[in-house]
């Protein structure tokens, strides 16, 4: 039926599919250090370049350059590296644990470790993240107990969420980590509401919303942008553009032109695009945005440009829809390798120290896992309590649930 002579419709397609050899040499990556550092009270409409370019600090050679550089102490950078390494090891072990049937499901953030760990470093206690399922780095960067994370992943008897939630949908109020939803996008506008509340309450806290590139297409992305641009509450809205939404490349959410950050310009919102695989750049831009929010200068939209190096989840096989080697071809490199190179360049790190640290971290993760497995796994128990499924839906259990709880216990 379609007449190609007058095709008046486009179905965007990624450049490379299985069988192709991915080649991103034509992708223009702006030079590190090239994008200016605007004043905190900049007029958002002046940030056009910031929404289209990519703010980068680390050069290919591991140099830190440009106006955004030099915010972190060496200790902080080393701590950041450790956090990224911890996250990666955690992901590896938990993916393996899923294969062994210890849990039903896992989601890793391999290749994207810099985004959340560097962002969290820009926050203060009391601030609140509204994360997605791929933002565990926000917890790891606060040294949240790995064992507790694993208790949740294994749905065991010490699972803080009592076995109710899918693995990785953590909740940790004391760590500024809002309960993660399985429904995409909903949390983005909730973050705006939390920030409005903080402002109405006269506190100095800020909120951070998180969303994936694919999920920016969801309606609640718009809700968040509309409410944030109207009320200008203290919120930082983060888009993690890891190029893929399950099997769907980012061109389906975005169309074939522009950037995700550019979506903010139409709302008069400060919008910046940052190299999400550059720990220093993510941290610097995040700090800038957080400080703006803190001072009441308005919301900021950040696009973190990164790459989902692994599958979408343990249920996914990315080789069915993209070339096997695509993640290696990705021009922004690996965030851990890049920070490592910089620290070595600075003379405060070395290959040995890296290996040694890797071993230490693996030890730590393995120890945590052993402890967590003692509390049970989904495979073998001990499990989260069964009849607790009737608890905590309401502050007080209504009579119909009491009746059901009784019936459930009888039908055992």
């Amino acid at each position, binding site marked *: 039926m379609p007449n190609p002579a007058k095709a008046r419709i486009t179905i965007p397609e990624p450049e490379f599919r299985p069988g192709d050899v991915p080649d991103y040499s034509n992708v223009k990556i702006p030079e590190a250090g090239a994008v200016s550092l605007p004043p905190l009270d900049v007029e958002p409409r002046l940030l056009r370049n910031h929404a289209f370019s990519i703010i980068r600090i680390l050069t290919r050679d591991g140099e830190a350059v440009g106006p955004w550089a030099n915010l972190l102490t060496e200790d902080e950078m080393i701590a950041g590296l450790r956090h990224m390494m911890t996250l990666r090891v955690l992901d590896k072990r938990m993916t393996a644990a899923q294969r062994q049937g210890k849990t039903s499901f896992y989601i890793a953030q391999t290749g994207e470790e810099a985004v959340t760990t560097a962002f969290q470093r820009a926050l203060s206690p009391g601030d609140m993240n509204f994360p997605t399922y791929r933002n565990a780095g926000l917890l790891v960067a606060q040294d949240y107990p790995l064992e507790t994370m694993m208790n949740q992943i294994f749905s065991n008897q010490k699972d803080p969420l009592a076995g109710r*939630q899918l693995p990785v949908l953590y*909740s940790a109020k004391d760590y500024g980590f809002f*309960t993660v939803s399985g429904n995409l996008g909903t949390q983005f506008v909730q973050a705006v509401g939390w920030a409005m*509340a903080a402002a109405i*309450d006269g506190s100095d806290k800020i909120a951070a919303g998180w969303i994936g590139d694919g999920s920016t297409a969801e309606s609640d992305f718009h*809700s968040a942008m509309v409410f944030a641009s109207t009320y200008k509450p203290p919120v930082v809205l983060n888009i993690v553009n890891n190029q893929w939404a399950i099997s769907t490349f980012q061109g389906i959410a975005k169309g074939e032109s522009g950037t995700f950050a550019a979506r903010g310009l139409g709302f008069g919102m400060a919008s910046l695009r940052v190299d999400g695989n550059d720990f220093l750049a993510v941290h610097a831009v995040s700090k800038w945005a957080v400080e703006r929010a803190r001072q009441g200068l308005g919301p900021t939209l950040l696009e973190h440009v990164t790459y989902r190096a692994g599958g979408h989840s343990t249920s996914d096989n990315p080789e069915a829809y993209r070339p096997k080697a695509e993640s290696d071809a990705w021009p922004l490199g690996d965030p851990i390798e890049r920070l490592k190179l910089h620290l070595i360049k600075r003379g405060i790190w070395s290959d040995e120290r890296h290996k040694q640290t890797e071993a230490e971290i693996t030890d730590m993760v393995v120890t945590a896992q052993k402890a967590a497995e003692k509390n049970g796994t989904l495979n073998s128990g001990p499990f989260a309590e069964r009849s607790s499924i009737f608890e*905590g839906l*309401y502050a007080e259990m209504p*009579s*119909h649930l009491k009746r059901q709880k009784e019936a459930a216990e009888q039908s055992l």
Partner: protein
Amino acid sequence: MTNMSMVEAIRDALDVVMTKDDRVIVFGEDVGYFGGVFRCTQGLQEKHGKLRCFDTPINESGIVGTAIGMAAYGLRPCIEIQFADYMYPAFDQISQEASRIRYRSNGDFTCPMVIRMPTGGGIFGGETHSQSPEALFTHVSGLKTVLPSNPYDVKGMLIAAIEDPDPVIFLEPKRLYHGPFDGHHEAEAKTWKGHPLGEVPEGYYTVPLGKAAVRREGADVTVLTYGTMVHVALAAAEEQGVDAEIIDLRSLLPLDLETIEASVRKTGRCVVAHEATLTSGFGAELAARIQKECFYHLEAPVRRVAGWDVPYPHAQEWYYFPGPARLGQALLETLEA
């Protein structure tokens, strides 16, 4: 005691809680300066300030979504959806988020909030200003759904809802805003003046959620209903000379199982009435429950009187509306069965 319309009682309830608790925040479309298209929030912005009562963009998902964030922070948002018909764009935030914040976080976060919305027909509003979506909410675990039928209840229940630790869907039968309505649309409109339930105490009081009210005691048949239909049921019983026990459920979830079951066991007969469409309406849940719990007491099938299973039509509103004639007929049929 002052005589108030439902609109005035709502306004008064909001004012009382906002004065008592500065965590209470009121917002929605046209809710700020103007005071809402039904004027339920009139005067609140002037009195409590723009940060406590304000207009929102027309995005129901955003209204509910921001309220969830505020509730998680520790405020007590009480939001207005302009018509219940316009809650659908927010149904994801209501049914998948607000309802589950406490549960999925195992109490780490909570979501105390109230979503007010005018519901029901009788004002020539056509298919998009007349709907009664209560059944949808009652199918969602984690929500409370209430639907008061008079000024006294609406004030006490709204205060209770705002103080409730969990999300409450607060449905306001818009046809009752300015006076009781028994379905006789050809008669002159009444006001709440002179109606005993139009007498509203000043200041703070609550009507607990989850308790039904027996509006008329009777021996022969139990009528389970709520909202506008309470008044229709009273008229129908009167007109047909039926000794009906008329129960105003007020709260659909939690449901006052004890009161309901005791009444049906006493009368042995039951009619369920609502304005919403029949199929999978809340009447289905009531009938299903009663036939189960009171099976050996029932002398006739539970009859349902409801809106027909079509969109609420504009011109044929009174053919659609389950008025006193239709309800009266069901009462007689149930007694004769």
